[in-house]
Protein backbone atom coordinates (compact mmCIF):
# COMPACT_ATOMS: atom_id res chain seq x y z
CA UNK A 1 0.00 0.00 0.00
CA UNK A 2 1.27 3.46 -0.80
CA UNK A 3 -0.29 6.85 -0.31
CA UNK A 4 0.96 9.18 -2.97
CA UNK A 5 0.27 12.83 -3.70
CA UNK A 6 1.43 14.44 -6.90
CA UNK A 7 1.83 18.12 -7.74
CA UNK A 8 -0.93 19.15 -5.38
CA UNK A 9 -2.05 22.76 -5.49
CA UNK A 10 -4.19 24.04 -2.68
CA UNK A 11 -6.08 27.32 -2.94
CA UNK A 12 -8.19 28.60 -0.08
CA UNK A 13 -10.15 31.81 -0.15
CA UNK A 14 -8.37 32.87 -3.35
CA UNK A 15 -4.91 32.49 -1.78
CA UNK A 16 -2.50 29.74 -2.79
CA UNK A 17 -1.63 27.86 0.40
CA UNK A 18 0.85 25.57 -1.27
CA UNK A 19 1.52 24.40 -4.81
CA UNK A 20 3.31 21.59 -6.56
CA UNK A 21 3.50 19.50 -3.41
CA UNK A 22 4.65 15.89 -3.74
CA UNK A 23 4.62 13.37 -0.95
CA UNK A 24 4.63 9.66 -0.47
CA UNK A 25 4.01 7.34 2.45
CA UNK A 26 4.33 3.58 2.22
CA UNK A 27 2.78 0.83 4.32
CA UNK A 28 4.11 0.71 7.88
CA UNK A 29 5.52 4.23 7.56
CA UNK A 30 4.57 7.44 9.24
CA UNK A 31 4.91 10.87 7.72
CA UNK A 32 5.19 13.88 9.99
CA UNK A 33 3.99 17.08 8.35
CA UNK A 34 5.83 19.98 9.95
CA UNK A 35 5.91 23.69 9.32
CA UNK A 36 4.93 27.04 10.81
CA UNK A 37 1.32 28.01 11.53
CA UNK A 38 -0.61 28.69 8.36
CA UNK A 39 1.71 26.70 6.13
CA UNK A 40 -1.10 24.38 5.09
CA UNK A 41 -0.65 21.31 7.31
CA UNK A 42 -4.33 20.99 8.15
CA UNK A 43 -5.29 21.84 4.58
CA UNK A 44 -3.11 18.99 3.34
CA UNK A 45 -4.73 16.51 5.72
CA UNK A 46 -8.24 17.66 4.80
CA UNK A 47 -7.28 17.41 1.15
CA UNK A 48 -6.20 13.78 1.61
CA UNK A 49 -9.40 13.12 3.55
CA UNK A 50 -11.44 14.38 0.61
CA UNK A 51 -12.81 17.29 2.61
CA UNK A 52 -11.08 19.83 0.38
CA UNK A 53 -10.82 19.66 -3.37
CA UNK A 54 -7.30 20.27 -4.70
CA UNK A 55 -6.94 23.04 -7.27
CA UNK A 56 -4.52 20.80 -9.12
CA UNK A 57 -2.80 17.45 -8.77
CA UNK A 58 -4.11 14.32 -7.13
CA UNK A 59 -3.86 12.06 -4.11
CA UNK A 60 -4.26 8.32 -4.43
CA UNK A 61 -3.90 5.21 -2.34
CA UNK A 62 -2.21 2.50 -4.36
CA UNK A 63 -2.88 -1.06 -3.31
CA UNK A 64 -5.90 -0.27 -1.14
CA UNK A 65 -9.36 -1.80 -1.47
CA UNK A 66 -10.53 -1.31 -5.05
CA UNK A 67 -14.17 -0.67 -4.36
CA UNK A 68 -13.55 1.98 -1.72
CA UNK A 69 -12.45 5.57 -2.17
CA UNK A 70 -9.51 7.00 -0.25
CA UNK A 71 -11.67 8.89 2.30
CA UNK A 72 -13.59 5.67 2.99
CA UNK A 73 -10.34 3.96 3.99
CA UNK A 74 -9.18 6.83 6.13
CA UNK A 75 -9.51 7.92 9.72
CA UNK A 76 -9.36 11.67 10.24
CA UNK A 77 -8.57 12.95 13.70
CA UNK A 78 -9.07 16.70 13.47
CA UNK A 79 -9.03 19.63 15.86
CA UNK A 80 -12.68 19.07 16.54
CA UNK A 81 -13.56 15.95 18.46
CA UNK A 82 -16.82 14.90 16.76
CA UNK A 83 -18.21 14.12 20.21
CA UNK A 84 -21.74 14.84 21.38
CA UNK A 85 -21.82 16.25 24.91
CA UNK A 86 -25.31 14.84 25.55
CA UNK A 87 -24.24 11.26 24.86
CA UNK A 88 -22.18 9.07 27.15
CA UNK A 89 -18.62 8.06 26.35
CA UNK A 90 -19.75 4.60 25.28
CA UNK A 91 -22.66 5.91 23.20
CA UNK A 92 -20.35 8.30 21.37
CA UNK A 93 -17.89 5.56 20.53
CA UNK A 94 -20.53 2.94 19.65
CA UNK A 95 -22.19 5.39 17.28
CA UNK A 96 -19.01 6.00 15.32
CA UNK A 97 -18.23 2.31 15.30
CA UNK A 98 -21.65 1.49 13.83
CA UNK A 99 -21.73 4.43 11.47
CA UNK A 100 -18.23 4.10 10.04
CA UNK A 101 -18.63 0.36 9.55
CA UNK A 102 -16.10 -2.14 8.31
CA UNK A 103 -13.86 -4.22 10.58
CA UNK A 104 -15.06 -3.20 14.01
CA UNK A 105 -13.85 -4.14 17.46
CA UNK A 106 -15.47 -4.11 20.87
CA UNK A 107 -15.95 -0.53 22.12
CA UNK A 108 -15.29 -1.53 25.73
CA UNK A 109 -11.88 -2.88 24.78
CA UNK A 110 -11.05 0.26 22.81
CA UNK A 111 -11.99 2.44 25.78
CA UNK A 112 -9.81 0.31 28.05
CA UNK A 113 -6.90 0.77 25.65
CA UNK A 114 -7.10 4.55 25.86
CA UNK A 115 -7.61 4.55 29.62
CA UNK A 116 -11.30 5.50 29.71
CA UNK A 117 -12.66 2.16 30.96
CA UNK A 118 -13.80 3.80 34.21
CA UNK A 119 -15.82 6.53 32.47
CA UNK A 120 -17.94 4.63 29.95
CA UNK A 121 -21.27 5.93 31.22
CA UNK A 122 -20.20 9.49 31.89
CA UNK A 123 -21.72 12.08 29.53
CA UNK A 124 -19.02 13.38 27.20
CA UNK A 125 -19.82 16.91 28.40
CA UNK A 126 -18.00 16.17 31.67
CA UNK A 127 -14.75 15.02 30.05
CA UNK A 128 -11.58 17.10 30.22
CA UNK A 129 -9.83 18.14 27.02
CA UNK A 130 -7.35 15.30 27.38
CA UNK A 131 -10.07 12.75 27.98
CA UNK A 132 -11.99 14.00 24.94
CA UNK A 133 -8.88 13.49 22.88
CA UNK A 134 -8.50 9.97 24.27
CA UNK A 135 -12.08 9.21 23.31
CA UNK A 136 -11.43 10.47 19.77
CA UNK A 137 -8.38 8.24 19.62
CA UNK A 138 -10.54 5.29 20.69
CA UNK A 139 -12.49 5.88 17.47
CA UNK A 140 -9.35 5.07 15.47
CA UNK A 141 -9.21 1.71 17.23
CA UNK A 142 -12.93 0.90 17.09
CA UNK A 143 -12.98 0.60 13.31
CA UNK A 144 -10.03 -0.51 11.23
CA UNK A 145 -8.88 1.88 8.54
CA UNK A 146 -5.48 1.58 6.81
CA UNK A 147 -4.76 5.31 6.67
CA UNK A 148 -4.72 7.56 9.74
CA UNK A 149 -4.67 11.34 9.24
CA UNK A 150 -3.84 13.01 12.52
CA UNK A 151 -3.98 16.75 13.11
CA UNK A 152 -1.99 17.69 16.21
CA UNK A 153 -2.90 14.33 17.76
CA UNK A 154 -0.97 14.79 20.97
CA UNK A 155 -2.32 18.22 21.89
CA UNK A 156 -4.06 18.14 25.29
CA UNK A 157 -2.62 14.71 26.09
CA UNK A 158 -0.52 14.29 29.23
CA UNK A 159 2.88 12.57 29.15
CA UNK A 160 1.36 9.16 29.88
CA UNK A 161 -1.24 9.73 27.17
CA UNK A 162 1.43 10.66 24.65
CA UNK A 163 3.34 7.45 25.41
CA UNK A 164 0.14 5.46 25.14
CA UNK A 165 -0.71 7.04 21.81
CA UNK A 166 2.79 6.44 20.49
CA UNK A 167 2.28 2.75 21.35
CA UNK A 168 -1.06 2.68 19.51
CA UNK A 169 0.52 4.31 16.46
CA UNK A 170 3.32 1.72 16.57
CA UNK A 171 0.69 -1.01 16.60
CA UNK A 172 -1.08 0.54 13.60
CA UNK A 173 2.18 0.73 11.65
CA UNK A 174 3.04 -2.85 12.61
CA UNK A 175 -0.24 -3.97 11.02
CA UNK A 176 0.82 -2.27 7.78
CA UNK A 177 -1.01 0.99 8.28
CA UNK A 178 -0.02 4.44 7.09
CA UNK A 179 0.06 7.54 9.29
CA UNK A 180 0.21 11.14 8.15
CA UNK A 181 0.38 13.48 11.12
CA UNK A 182 0.56 17.26 11.23
CA UNK A 183 2.48 18.11 14.34
CA UNK A 184 4.67 20.56 16.22
CA UNK A 185 5.61 18.18 19.02
CA UNK A 186 7.62 15.01 18.43
CA UNK A 187 5.30 12.07 17.75
CA UNK A 188 7.30 9.52 19.70
CA UNK A 189 7.58 7.21 16.72
CA UNK A 190 9.96 7.01 13.80
CA UNK A 191 8.59 9.16 11.00
CA UNK A 192 9.63 10.67 7.72
CA UNK A 193 9.35 14.44 7.53
CA UNK A 194 7.42 16.60 5.09
CA UNK A 195 8.33 20.23 5.57
CA UNK A 196 5.72 22.79 4.55
CA UNK A 197 5.97 26.51 4.04
CA UNK A 198 9.16 28.58 4.01
CA UNK A 199 11.12 27.63 0.91
CA UNK A 200 8.49 25.23 -0.40
Amino acid at each position, binding site marked *: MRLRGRQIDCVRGGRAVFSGLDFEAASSHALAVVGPNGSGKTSLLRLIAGLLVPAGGSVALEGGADELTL*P*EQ*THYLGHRDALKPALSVLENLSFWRDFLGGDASDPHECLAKVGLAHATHLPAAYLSAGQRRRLSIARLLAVRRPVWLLDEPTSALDAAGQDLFAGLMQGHLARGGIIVAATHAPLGIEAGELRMGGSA
Partner: protein
Amino acid sequence: MTALAALIRRDIRIALRVGGGALIGVLFFLTVTVLMPFALGPDLALLTRLGPSILWLGALLASLLTLDRLFTSDHEDGSLDLIVMGRTPLELACAAKALAHWLAAGLPLIIATPVLGLMLNLDATATSAVALTLLVGTPALTFIGMIGAALAVTLHRGGLLLAVLVLPLSIPVLIFGVAASQAAISGPLPFGTPFSILCAISLVSFVIGPFAAAASLRHGLD
Protein backbone atom coordinates in the same frame (compact mmCIF):
# COMPACT_ATOMS: atom_id res chain seq x y z
CA MET B 1 -28.32 -0.33 7.34
CA THR B 2 -26.65 -0.45 10.74
CA ALA B 3 -24.97 2.83 9.91
CA LEU B 4 -28.26 4.56 9.13
CA ALA B 5 -30.01 3.02 12.13
CA ALA B 6 -27.13 4.19 14.33
CA LEU B 7 -27.41 7.72 12.93
CA ILE B 8 -31.18 7.84 13.48
CA ARG B 9 -30.84 6.46 17.01
CA ARG B 10 -28.13 8.94 17.90
CA ASP B 11 -30.02 11.98 16.56
CA ILE B 12 -33.22 11.02 18.35
CA ARG B 13 -31.33 10.42 21.59
CA ILE B 14 -29.62 13.81 21.40
CA ALA B 15 -32.90 15.53 20.56
CA LEU B 16 -34.70 14.00 23.53
CA ARG B 17 -31.99 14.68 26.11
CA VAL B 18 -31.52 17.91 28.00
CA GLY B 19 -30.84 20.79 25.64
CA GLY B 20 -31.76 18.68 22.63
CA GLY B 21 -34.61 20.94 21.61
CA ALA B 22 -37.16 18.37 20.42
CA LEU B 23 -39.75 19.68 22.85
CA ILE B 24 -39.04 23.33 22.05
CA GLY B 25 -41.02 22.91 18.85
CA VAL B 26 -44.05 21.49 20.64
CA LEU B 27 -43.92 24.22 23.26
CA PHE B 28 -43.81 26.86 20.55
CA PHE B 29 -46.70 25.20 18.73
CA LEU B 30 -48.66 25.14 21.97
CA THR B 31 -47.93 28.79 22.71
CA VAL B 32 -48.91 30.06 19.26
CA THR B 33 -52.13 28.08 19.21
CA VAL B 34 -53.15 28.99 22.73
CA LEU B 35 -52.57 32.69 22.05
CA MET B 36 -54.79 32.70 18.98
CA PRO B 37 -58.19 32.51 20.78
CA PHE B 38 -57.07 35.40 22.98
CA ALA B 39 -56.14 37.47 19.95
CA LEU B 40 -59.22 36.60 17.88
CA GLY B 41 -61.76 36.82 20.68
CA PRO B 42 -64.32 34.28 21.87
CA ASP B 43 -66.16 33.93 18.55
CA LEU B 44 -66.47 30.12 18.34
CA ALA B 45 -67.58 30.05 14.71
CA LEU B 46 -64.60 32.16 13.68
CA LEU B 47 -62.23 29.91 15.61
CA THR B 48 -63.63 26.84 13.93
CA ARG B 49 -63.21 28.44 10.54
CA LEU B 50 -59.64 29.55 11.20
CA GLY B 51 -58.63 26.51 13.28
CA PRO B 52 -56.98 24.41 10.57
CA SER B 53 -55.02 27.40 9.26
CA ILE B 54 -53.84 28.31 12.75
CA LEU B 55 -52.72 24.76 13.45
CA TRP B 56 -50.93 24.51 10.13
CA LEU B 57 -49.19 27.86 10.55
CA GLY B 58 -48.13 26.92 14.07
CA ALA B 59 -46.77 23.57 12.91
CA LEU B 60 -44.91 25.19 10.01
CA LEU B 61 -43.19 27.75 12.23
CA ALA B 62 -42.51 25.19 14.96
CA SER B 63 -40.84 22.80 12.55
CA LEU B 64 -38.73 25.65 11.20
CA LEU B 65 -37.63 26.61 14.69
CA THR B 66 -35.55 23.50 15.28
CA LEU B 67 -34.40 22.87 11.72
CA ASP B 68 -31.33 25.08 11.83
CA ARG B 69 -29.67 22.67 14.27
CA LEU B 70 -30.04 19.79 11.81
CA PHE B 71 -26.53 20.19 10.41
CA THR B 72 -24.93 23.07 12.32
CA SER B 73 -24.24 21.11 15.49
CA ASP B 74 -22.62 18.32 13.48
CA HIS B 75 -20.65 20.92 11.55
CA GLU B 76 -19.43 22.69 14.67
CA ASP B 77 -18.11 19.60 16.42
CA GLY B 78 -16.57 18.03 13.33
CA SER B 79 -19.01 15.11 13.07
CA LEU B 80 -20.11 16.30 9.65
CA ASP B 81 -16.58 15.77 8.27
CA LEU B 82 -16.67 12.15 9.36
CA ILE B 83 -20.20 11.64 8.04
CA VAL B 84 -19.10 13.01 4.65
CA MET B 85 -16.03 10.74 4.64
CA GLY B 86 -18.00 7.66 5.72
CA ARG B 87 -18.94 4.67 3.61
CA THR B 88 -22.64 5.52 3.77
CA PRO B 89 -23.75 7.64 0.80
CA LEU B 90 -24.23 11.20 1.99
CA GLU B 91 -27.71 11.34 0.43
CA LEU B 92 -28.84 8.43 2.61
CA ALA B 93 -27.21 9.93 5.68
CA CYS B 94 -29.10 13.20 5.01
CA ALA B 95 -32.37 11.30 4.61
CA ALA B 96 -31.71 9.46 7.89
CA LYS B 97 -31.01 12.73 9.69
CA ALA B 98 -34.21 14.27 8.33
CA LEU B 99 -36.20 11.22 9.36
CA ALA B 100 -34.74 11.33 12.87
CA HIS B 101 -35.51 15.05 13.07
CA TRP B 102 -39.09 14.46 12.01
CA LEU B 103 -39.55 11.63 14.52
CA ALA B 104 -38.19 13.76 17.36
CA ALA B 105 -39.63 17.17 16.43
CA GLY B 106 -42.42 16.60 13.89
CA LEU B 107 -44.31 13.67 15.34
CA PRO B 108 -44.90 15.36 18.75
CA LEU B 109 -46.64 18.22 16.89
CA ILE B 110 -49.14 15.77 15.45
CA ILE B 111 -49.67 14.12 18.82
CA ALA B 112 -50.39 17.56 20.33
CA THR B 113 -52.86 18.47 17.60
CA PRO B 114 -56.01 16.86 19.14
CA VAL B 115 -55.47 18.76 22.40
CA LEU B 116 -54.95 22.03 20.57
CA GLY B 117 -57.94 21.33 18.35
CA LEU B 118 -60.11 21.55 21.46
CA MET B 119 -58.95 25.12 22.11
CA LEU B 120 -59.93 26.12 18.60
CA ASN B 121 -63.41 24.56 18.84
CA LEU B 122 -62.68 21.88 16.25
CA ASP B 123 -64.82 18.74 16.37
CA ALA B 124 -63.44 15.22 16.08
CA THR B 125 -63.68 15.08 12.27
CA ALA B 126 -61.95 18.40 11.82
CA THR B 127 -59.21 17.54 14.32
CA SER B 128 -58.49 14.19 12.71
CA ALA B 129 -58.46 15.81 9.28
CA VAL B 130 -55.89 18.36 10.43
CA ALA B 131 -53.85 15.67 12.21
CA LEU B 132 -53.87 13.51 9.09
CA THR B 133 -52.78 16.36 6.81
CA LEU B 134 -50.06 17.28 9.29
CA LEU B 135 -48.91 13.65 9.39
CA VAL B 136 -48.51 13.70 5.64
CA GLY B 137 -47.33 17.29 5.30
CA THR B 138 -44.81 17.83 8.10
CA PRO B 139 -42.29 15.32 6.64
CA ALA B 140 -42.32 17.45 3.50
CA LEU B 141 -41.56 20.52 5.64
CA THR B 142 -38.61 18.69 7.21
CA PHE B 143 -37.20 17.41 3.93
CA ILE B 144 -37.60 20.78 2.20
CA GLY B 145 -36.20 22.55 5.24
CA MET B 146 -33.20 20.25 5.20
CA ILE B 147 -32.09 21.85 1.92
CA GLY B 148 -32.06 25.25 3.58
CA ALA B 149 -30.31 23.84 6.64
CA ALA B 150 -27.59 22.35 4.43
CA LEU B 151 -27.14 25.65 2.59
CA ALA B 152 -26.92 27.64 5.81
CA VAL B 153 -24.57 25.22 7.55
CA THR B 154 -21.34 27.12 6.99
CA LEU B 155 -22.83 30.46 7.96
CA HIS B 156 -22.83 31.60 11.52
CA ARG B 157 -26.28 32.61 12.64
CA GLY B 158 -27.77 30.99 9.58
CA GLY B 159 -31.14 30.57 11.28
CA LEU B 160 -32.78 33.63 9.76
CA LEU B 161 -31.40 32.86 6.32
CA LEU B 162 -32.84 29.38 6.72
CA ALA B 163 -36.31 30.83 7.31
CA VAL B 164 -36.02 33.12 4.29
CA LEU B 165 -34.86 30.23 2.10
CA VAL B 166 -37.31 27.63 3.28
CA LEU B 167 -40.59 29.46 3.85
CA PRO B 168 -41.27 30.25 0.16
CA LEU B 169 -40.59 26.62 -0.71
CA SER B 170 -43.04 25.40 1.91
CA ILE B 171 -45.96 27.52 0.62
CA PRO B 172 -47.38 24.68 -1.55
CA VAL B 173 -47.37 22.36 1.47
CA LEU B 174 -49.23 24.98 3.49
CA ILE B 175 -51.78 25.65 0.73
CA PHE B 176 -52.70 22.02 0.16
CA GLY B 177 -52.49 21.07 3.82
CA VAL B 178 -54.99 23.75 4.80
CA ALA B 179 -57.12 23.13 1.69
CA ALA B 180 -57.43 19.43 2.50
CA SER B 181 -58.38 20.17 6.12
CA GLN B 182 -60.97 22.75 5.05
CA ALA B 183 -62.36 20.34 2.48
CA ALA B 184 -62.92 17.73 5.15
CA ILE B 185 -64.67 20.25 7.42
CA SER B 186 -66.80 22.40 5.14
CA GLY B 187 -66.34 21.16 1.58
CA PRO B 188 -67.27 21.78 -1.17
CA LEU B 189 -64.13 20.16 -2.59
CA PRO B 190 -63.72 16.44 -1.83
CA PHE B 191 -61.00 15.77 0.76
CA GLY B 192 -59.13 13.44 -1.60
CA THR B 193 -58.12 16.00 -4.20
CA PRO B 194 -55.96 18.42 -2.17
CA PHE B 195 -54.86 15.52 0.05
CA SER B 196 -53.46 13.59 -2.90
CA ILE B 197 -51.54 16.64 -4.04
CA LEU B 198 -50.18 17.06 -0.51
CA CYS B 199 -49.02 13.41 -0.57
CA ALA B 200 -47.40 14.01 -3.94
CA ILE B 201 -45.51 17.07 -2.65
CA SER B 202 -44.24 14.99 0.29
CA LEU B 203 -43.05 12.18 -1.98
CA VAL B 204 -41.28 14.64 -4.27
CA SER B 205 -39.56 16.26 -1.27
CA PHE B 206 -38.32 12.82 -0.08
CA VAL B 207 -36.54 12.41 -3.41
CA ILE B 208 -35.24 15.92 -3.98
CA GLY B 209 -34.43 16.90 -0.37
CA PRO B 210 -31.63 14.40 0.37
CA PHE B 211 -29.92 14.91 -2.99
CA ALA B 212 -30.06 18.70 -2.81
CA ALA B 213 -28.89 18.72 0.82
CA ALA B 214 -26.02 16.31 0.12
CA ALA B 215 -24.93 18.35 -2.90
CA SER B 216 -24.91 21.59 -0.94
CA LEU B 217 -23.08 19.97 1.99
CA ARG B 218 -20.35 18.65 -0.34
CA HIS B 219 -20.09 22.01 -2.02
CA GLY B 220 -20.00 23.94 1.23
CA LEU B 221 -17.16 22.00 2.84
CA ASP B 222 -14.02 23.91 3.67
